């Protein structure tokens, strides 16, 4: 198979011979029967359905529980490639936490003139309730999912820093389990770094951030919006794997200055809450009064040091798409080093010159909402029709401050298995990072999302993307 010359293919580069990390896999693959592999694909799907690895799509009444398509050709990364990426992520995550501490305290970065004051003051993601709050270890974002894309042999870009409640880690773990189940022989031939330690590491990392109010072994709970949430499976999975309770807002209340869960033996205080509920819904007394997903008064307990909330409220200011454009400065300001990982050049549409450029070049650009996620409300210029572009132009002109624009990157491809054999598809990568006071732990690999439609650049599962197992090879 000849790779598309326009894009960097991670298996074949720009040529036809397998790149070094894929050599062993390709040797195995050439002796495999495509029909057998395709039947394995169905086997994998049946397994996912039985386990219930599903997600819900909002606004789709016919398919309340859907599977994310799984492609069984792994994405393979060499140890050396990974080491550099991991170093870059670690640097970036350190900077994010230092930035969050600064933003909610003295705002030195603004005083130093490296970040305009209005980027904070006029930003909905800035939470005034967090001003002056120092969580244990000064960690604000404990669990980070740094979205990366690759455009060449040595070219990695950070697309987004997901510092609020990144999801997808359960797919990383289940994908690996499925591959081990289906192709044990591959894993004895090729040495792949393990990912299965993630839940233990998560528990340890959360426990290390217990508040002063905790005496003895920290009690950890996972807060979910409930079984109708799109990531409910993941919430249950992580709670289960960590032996933590899976709680909803109505299981919790404030008792004697602590947040406590209703157990069969009465109320029991929680030390660390891994919440998968957005800030807005966390506390009806302090934020959205209509929320039934949160706990009335939890913010007051939090500010008094009675509970650790992971991630901290207000971390959205760090992964906001407008702030993103300042990340190279932010990394340099807090670490004193140049950023190892590149940023995608970003046009802030709030700036009139940038807006003009973006409006003139809509057909070439990717335009995103500043606070959007999940691939909703974005424009991929090269893939959009004239009509779609014009409709988007109107939205952009109406509220330019809501948007940023980026060049369309030549995302790398990795082959997927189709009825006709291997075929290249665009991918991205979300590695998962755990931050505790004494260490930053990055699971080797992460979740590879793949756009299953030929030529498509949109990998989001809500938009029909699939996933792949991601292998980082041993040295």
């Amino acid at each position: 198979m000849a790779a598309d010359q326009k894009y960097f293919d991670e298996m074949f580069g720009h040529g036809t011979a397998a790149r070094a990390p894929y050599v062993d896999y390709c040797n195995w693959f050439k002796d495999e029967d495509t029909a057998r592999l395709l039947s394995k694909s169905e086997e994998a799907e049946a397994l996912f359905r039985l386990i219930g690895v599903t997600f819900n799509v909002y606004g789709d009444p016919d398919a309340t529980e859907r599977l994310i398509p799984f492609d069984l050709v792994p994405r393979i990364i060499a140890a050396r490639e990974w080491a550099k990426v991991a170093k870059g992520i670690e640097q970036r995550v350190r900077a994010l936490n230092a930035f969050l501490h600064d933003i909610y305290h003295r705002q030195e970065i603004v005083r130093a003139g490296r970040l305009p004051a209005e980027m904070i003051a006029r930003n909905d993601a800035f939470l005034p309730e967090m001003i002056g709050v120092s969580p244990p270890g000064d960690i604000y974002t404990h669990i980070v999912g740094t979205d990366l894309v690759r455009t060449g042999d040595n070219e990695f870009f950070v697309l987004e820093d997901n510092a609020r409640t990144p999801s997808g880690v359960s797919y990383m773990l289940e994908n690996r389990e499925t591959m081990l189940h289906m192709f044990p022989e591959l894993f004895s031939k090729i040495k792949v770094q393990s990912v299965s330690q993630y839940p233990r590491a998560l528990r340890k990392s959360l426990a290390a951030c217990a508040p002063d109010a905790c005496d003895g072994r920290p009690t950890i709970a996972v807060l979910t919006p409930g079984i109708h949430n799109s990531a409910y499976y993941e919430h249950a999975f992580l709670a289960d794997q960590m032996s933590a309770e899976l709680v909803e807002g109505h299981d919790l209340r404030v008792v004697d200055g602590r947040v406590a869960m209703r157990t069969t033996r009465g109320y029991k205080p929680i030390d660390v809450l891994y919440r998968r509920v957005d800030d807005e819904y966390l506390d009806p007394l302090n934020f959205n009064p209509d929320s039934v997903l949160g706990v009335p008064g939890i913010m007051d307990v939090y500010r008094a040091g009675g509970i650790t909330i992971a991630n901290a409220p207000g971390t959205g200011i760090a992964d906001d798409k407008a702030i993103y454009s300042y990340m190279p400065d932010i990394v340099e300001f807090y670490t004193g080093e140049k950023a190892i990982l590149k940023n995608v050049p970003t046009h802030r549409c709030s700036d009139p010159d940038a807006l003009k450029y973006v409006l003139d070049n809509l057909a070439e650009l990717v335009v995103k909402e500043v606070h959007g996620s999940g691939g909703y409300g974005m424009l991929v210029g090269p893939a959009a029709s004239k009509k779609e572009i014009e409709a988007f132009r109107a939205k952009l002109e109406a509220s330019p401050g809501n948007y940023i624009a980026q060049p369309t990157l030549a995302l790398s491809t990795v082959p997927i298995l189709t009825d006709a054999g291997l075929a290249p598809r665009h991918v991205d990568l979300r590695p998962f990072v755990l931050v505790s006071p004494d260490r930053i732990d990055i699971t080797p690999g992460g979740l590879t999302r793949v756009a299953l439609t030929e030529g498509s650049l949109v990998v989001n599962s809500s938009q029909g993307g699939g996933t792949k197992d991601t292998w980082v090879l041993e040295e």
Partner: protein
Amino acid sequence: MLGKTAGGLFWMFRYLERAENTARMIDAGLRISLTRSSAAESEWTSILSSTGARAAYEATHGAPDGPKVIDFLLRDPNNPGSIMAGIESARMNARVVRTALTREVWEAVNECYMVLKRLLAQPIEDRDLPRVLQIIRQRSAFVRGALHGTMVRNDIYNFARIGTFYERADNTARIIDQKYYILLPSVKLVGSPSDNVQWDTILRATSTTRAYQTLHEGDVDPRAIARFLILDGRLPRSLAFCYGKIGDNLGYLEQEYGMRHTCQSLADALCAKFRSHDMNAIFDYGLHEFISDFLRDSAALGRQIEIDYRFIE
């Protein structure tokens, strides 16, 4: 353990047990309508009453008609008590309490749901009905078997078991409640052939025909049937058996938590009734009254368990 989780386990196993019992009742109704079509209508009415679906059925379909009743009990979206709705509720509760279940138990209930969802997507034809009913009973048994074989014997297991036996006793009691008049001693004097069929239906609806015959050497006697279903501690669907188990499981919770609640006392009082009463005493008191008292006391116990273990706030 969260109170919500305890409640979710209790209800998950109630719903499963209920679906299985409804399948047994359809089986019994089907048998009657095949053998004695003249008695069928009143049998379906009595089955609808036992499953608590009579009002809902009559509101949409009017007079009981075999195929309609069967479809209503199996899969009608207008019937919140249908087997399909029960299995869906069981699975929904299983999703809520998933962290408390072993993978085997979850997969058994999820597969039960997936199989029945496919199977009950269309109306079931007569010739397929026995097979479908068998699959329902079998799938429910798989979940019970996975629970038995893979779960640690702790509070989680106890709440699941309490839900199972609570619902099973409730079902047996409702069947007796519908049929008490043919189990009264005076009926034997009448001895009409229709009564024989009715007795047979009761045994079939509780899947106890074979057990009864073995233990009673084939002698069909209404008094013995009543004693069998109420007092015989050897029969896993009798009230005495189920309440013995509920008493045990509540006792284990008392030990594990080191705390005795009102529900333990209520359960003990109910268990004592089955120990102290023989069938004569029950008939003297009145079978109908005895069963009515039981249903009332059992409802009170259910509410008390919910309060004592904080299923809800």
